[in-house]
């Protein structure tokens, strides 16, 4: 009857509570997919409806929000979600990884190390790591319940048999806290080691599939592999054409009409910071 006309950060209070309860449960059972009553968001499925709901549920007035899409702060998805929260919550936003307290991400984990006062929110299209191996939801749930995960290795076996190495390069399955197998959302496997023992809380929201799961801070996250084919990070063999980084995850960009191409950092904030630092160094060199 006398509900306030405005509720902070878009969601009504009951929805927020419901999502927070799901998040608490997810944090209590690392890697377990908690079902939740996902709401319609003012954007199509596949554009981060799960991530937006999680972000809206945890956002406070003092938070500083950063949104990235494939590592970039300036792509459509990132810009529109950032604007959405500026409008509905009035929170401060940033593109700097260090300054952000909540980072919503699609398909990347920032290059800069995260700290314990930060929360990373992933947008997840398909939360079920067993989905393409076992189409029945009832069966995958039972497999999770019984830790019956042999099938996951069948997939990796098949990779090696076909390609000579584990050819899965993104959405590479991980084991969380020695129990649940989890899909880290379509992040490149380059980012998998960053999930392990991470000081920041990592939350995963899948809007269409109505699942929330989490990796609490400092949790052991292991990428699945074989003893004789251990997990390997993968990055394109090149240097960033803008900042010269040799350690960051690279995007390939077509530079002209003659097939010329360059590599640039996928994490725009990391790249910019490196360029600024470099400019400062050379400036001071002139003095």
């Amino acid at each position: 009857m006398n509900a306030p006309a405005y509720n902070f950060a878009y969601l009504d209070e009951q929805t927020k509570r419901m999502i927070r309860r799901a998040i608490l449960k997810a944090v209590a059972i690392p890697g377990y997919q908690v079902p939740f009553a996902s709401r319609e968001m003012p954007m199509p499925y596949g554009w981060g409806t799960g991530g937006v709901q999680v972000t809206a549920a945890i956002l406070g007035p003092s938070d500083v929000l950063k949104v990235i899409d494939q590592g970039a702060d300036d792509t459509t998805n990132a810009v529109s979600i950032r604007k959405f929260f500026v409008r509905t919550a009035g929170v401060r936003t940033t593109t700097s990884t260090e300054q952000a307290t909540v980072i919503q991400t699609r398909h990347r984990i920032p290059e800069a190390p995260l700290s314990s006062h930060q929360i990373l929110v992933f947008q997840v299209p398909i939360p079920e790591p067993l989905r393409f191996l076992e189409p029945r939801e009832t069966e995958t749930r039972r497999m999770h319940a019984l830790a019956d995960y042999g099938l996951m290795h069948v997939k990796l076996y098949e990779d090696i048999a076909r390609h000579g190495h584990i050819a899965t390069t993104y959405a590479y399955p991980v084991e969380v806290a020695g129990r649940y197998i989890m899909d880290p959302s379509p992040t490149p496997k380059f980012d998998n080691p960053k999930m392990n023992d991470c000081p920041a809380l990592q939350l995963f929201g899948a809007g269409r599939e109505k699942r929330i799961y989490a990796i609490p801070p400092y949790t052991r996250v292991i990428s699945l592999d074989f003893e004789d084919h251990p997990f390997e990070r993968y990055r394109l063999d090149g240097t960033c054409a803008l900042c010269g980084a040799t350690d960051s995850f690279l995007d390939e960009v077509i530079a002209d009409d003659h097939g010329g191409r360059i590599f640039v950092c996928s994490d725009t904030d990391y790249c910019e910071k490196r360029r600024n630092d470099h400019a400062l160094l050379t400036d001071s060199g002139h003095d």
Partner: protein
Amino acid sequence: MITRCLRIAAMTDEEVPLAIAEGLSKWYGRQLGCRDVSFCLYEGEVIAVVGESGSGKSTLLRLLCAELAPSAGKVHFRTRDGVTRDLALLGEAERRFLVRTDWGFVHQDATLGLRMAVSAGANVGDRLMASGWRHYGRIRGTAADWLERVEIDRARIDESPQTYSGGMRQRLQIARSLVSQPRLVLMDEPTGGLDVSVQARLLDLIRGLVADLRLSVVIVTHDLAVARLLSHRIMVMKDGQVIESGLTDQVLDDPREPYTQLLVSSILPP
């Protein structure tokens, strides 16, 4: 009572049955699946279940591996630790453990028993990985050995079972089941739908493996020749009930029940 206990304690593994079915019945609503089936299966023994379609053979098979819950009766199975346990009291996790270690299944339709989307090697390695093997080289080596054992060319290890012929699929299914060294193998019409020469080779292979590995087998078939070739004992089913059972040769050579006589006499002479 005490003497009986002493007798059991003195029994060796050979003498304690591997599996015991006790008054097994299954009703699908008002439809009868099978009724009051009891038998013991010892290690290294092959029992054939014969009968026409709809006589409850497959229902019995599914009851034996606890895939179906019986309406009445019990199935006991002696696990590797030597304890004979009631399957109905096993948890789902324990049942699955048995399914991927101690039990093997060979279906009539190979696509049910195989993962058609992955290679033959992965099919054979499936059970090994499910029971914790994490060394690619060893899994592959074992898979290749098993392919050879069931007379499939090692070079075809990376091919999908989609590219295999019916007989090869059936042999692949056998390799996939036996790789975990199961003690009980359930076969549902393993030679169904294969041409006669392929059938003969497959039966030969099964007979060899059963003898080498001392497997206990329950084989469901409507083909009396298969029963005669493979099994030690036979159970004839009709309308969900076992109407006659005994040593295979005895039953087939000297059938007592009219229905069994009919079955035996309806084999076409070659």
